[in-house]
């Protein structure tokens, strides 16, 4: 810890709450709308008692109307407000697709850049625990596909806080997608420094030489854990946290793969037309095949909806073990000490 800087240890859920507090304290045009905001359990510890501190006019629990609430937030954003819409599970957010994809994403372009919907849409990925097909989805790739939206997926408590602040202060519509599986993750946080979202992008979070591991959100956390464990097997993995999925910048990935020659992308969603495939495609388009020591691999969900049975659930989601085995095969098959040619 650096001297002179106040660090505070908080978990991911509390870090999100800190961002809300920061924004609501400083920006009177910020308000929050969504289902369950006055309840104690809809969104974990990420918004506890905000309604009591900021009042129910700024923390608006809503009728069961995802589309109207999201559309209303888009409309309010066109009138100078910076609303945050909260969807406690992104599966339910699909009712709001028109407001997000047809309206918010295209508004600036359709009206010639004369108006911008500065709305943040927080969709929570909330899965596991036998919740089943409609309480489990991670649909970030859908939104990353659409020009006009920005999509962020924080993997650390610091990003959970800072990227929410950047999202709300950004003039564009932003999908902020946090993951309940990360809520207990702890980190020492320095004071907030506001950073424009346009300047945020992917980041190398641990250095390595043998293989490049790429993920976003919970998958980025898995990659970091895998890299730490792989060290004990003398495999040096470089980990890249994508952080911002739209607009997607993979220049750090390309630089890394140029060095390691091997690429493994982990994504907690489906494979077809997905994020992992997009990252691999962009690397393949840019790098000469001669730089690669093996075919890039992706670790994703099987092509099936999430099961409810706990037994099947264990088979369904990528785990630390899956990543380690896959990476070990990739590295060992191609020879751990082989290096990319120039």
């Amino acid at each position: 810890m650096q001297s002179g800087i106040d660090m505070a240890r908080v978990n991911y859920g509390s870090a999100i709450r800190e961002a809300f507090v920061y924004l609501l304290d400083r920006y009177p045009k910020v308000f929050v709308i969504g289902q369950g905001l006055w309840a104690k359990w809809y969104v974990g510890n990420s918004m506890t008692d905000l309604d009591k501190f900021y009042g129910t006019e700024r923390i608006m629990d809503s009728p069961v109307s995802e589309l109207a609430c999201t559309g209303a937030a888009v409309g309010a954003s066109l009138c100078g407000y910076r609303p945050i819409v909260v969807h406690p599970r992104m599966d339910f957010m699909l009712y709001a697709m028109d407001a997000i994809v047809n309206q918010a994403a295209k508004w600036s372009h359709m009206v010639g850049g004369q108006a911008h919907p500065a709305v943040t849409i927080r969709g929570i990925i909330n899965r596991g625990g036998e919740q089943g097909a409609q309480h489990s989805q991670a649909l970030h790739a859908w939104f990353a596909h659409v020009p006009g939206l920005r999509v962020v997926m924080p993997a650390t408590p610091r990003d959970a806080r800072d990227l929410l602040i950047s999202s709300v202060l950004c003039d564009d519509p932003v999908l902020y997608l946090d993951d309940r599986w990360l809520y207990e993750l702890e980190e020492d946080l320095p004071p907030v420094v506001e950073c424009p979202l346009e300047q945020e992008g992917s980041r190398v979070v641990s250095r390595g030489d043998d293989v490049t591991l790429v993920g976003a959100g919970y998958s980025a956390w898995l990659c970091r854990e895998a890299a730490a464990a792989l060290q004990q097997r003398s495999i040096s993995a470089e980990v890249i946290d994508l952080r911002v999925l739209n607009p997607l910048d993979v220049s750090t990935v390309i630089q890394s793969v140029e060095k390691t020659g091997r690429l493994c992308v982990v994504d907690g969603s489906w494979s077809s037309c997905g994020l992992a495939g997009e990252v691999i495609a962009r690397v393949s388009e840019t790098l000469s095949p001669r730089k690669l020591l093996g075919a890039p691999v992706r670790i994703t969900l099987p092509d099936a909806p999430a099961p409810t049975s706990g037994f099947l659930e264990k088979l369904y989601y990528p785990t630390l073990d899956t990543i380690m085995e896959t990476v070990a095969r990739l590295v060992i098959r191609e020879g751990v000490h082989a290096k990319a040619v120039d």
Partner: protein
Amino acid sequence: MDMDSFELGDLANPRCYTEPLDIGGCDPVLLRAQLRMMLLIRRAEEKIGDMLAAQKIPTPCHLGIGQEAIAVGVSEYLRPTDRVFGAHRSHAHFLALGGEVTALMAEILGRDAGCSRGMGGSMHLWGGSVGFFGSVPIVAGTVPLAVGAALAAKKDGESAVAVVYFGDGAAEEGSIHESLNLAAVWKLPVLFVCENNLFSSHMHISLRQPSNRVARYAEAHRIQAATVDGNDLVVVSRTSDDMVAAMRDGGGPRFLEVVTYRWRGHVGHREDNDVGVNRSTDLALWKRRDPIRRLVDALTVAGEWDNHAFHAMDEAVKTEVEEAWQQAETAPYPPASALLDRVYAKRH
């Protein structure tokens, strides 16, 4: 068919409401200004229709000829600080607020001088300076946005209101019901204006809804509603004036259903046969319920007007439209960089 199918009664009967308007108590100066605006909208849309026929406009255009009284009546008591949203058939909504004809024509031709800087065409109009917050062609797409604009107005506490125009077809979208419910439960100052022209594209309302009176949805959501003749400028003006005044005083949302008829097909310049709908008998009757003719007749009867004055106004309006078209036709296209520069507020 049960009685509900005919709930609108005479309002949907083109043989009724064809006489001169009752303009008793109206300011003749204001009426003449409103007449001029209706004429401007009519002639501008006729010009657009002609240019569609001449294949000079590639973008899809939905003409509202025959429906001019609604936008003119509703806009009369709005302020530039109010927030108005439209839909796919919104040329009139834009012009009635004071949007420039040249900016509309340039937009339809995809020029940089257009109201949406050439990025929207006929279906995505924007006019921030006159309070036109935008129109889009996704049916009912702007309705929740208007609710949000009303929420913002309520938070601002400055008595601004939001207005959203949509058609009878939009009332079949779930989005409308969520929006009516939100507006009612939060008492938001939003005026829902349903232009019930009895058709959604080629489908008559009797094939789509068990009643032809759309305001019943507002009543179900406990929103005060009125259903009036949409081809009567005076009635539309007075009703919306009352509703907007109540909304400015914190009275919550209102729902105005205006019954009307479009003279052209759903899209394009033709009258109806292009979509396989033969409604020529009804159309001929509805043309006698012309909102412009009925106002002109009323002014003439009242001695405020004669044919000569009308023709002078009409000629001036036609010249204005013609000049606007010519100006638009020679305006430059957006720069190639507009393709990417306008996606985000700041290019990444």
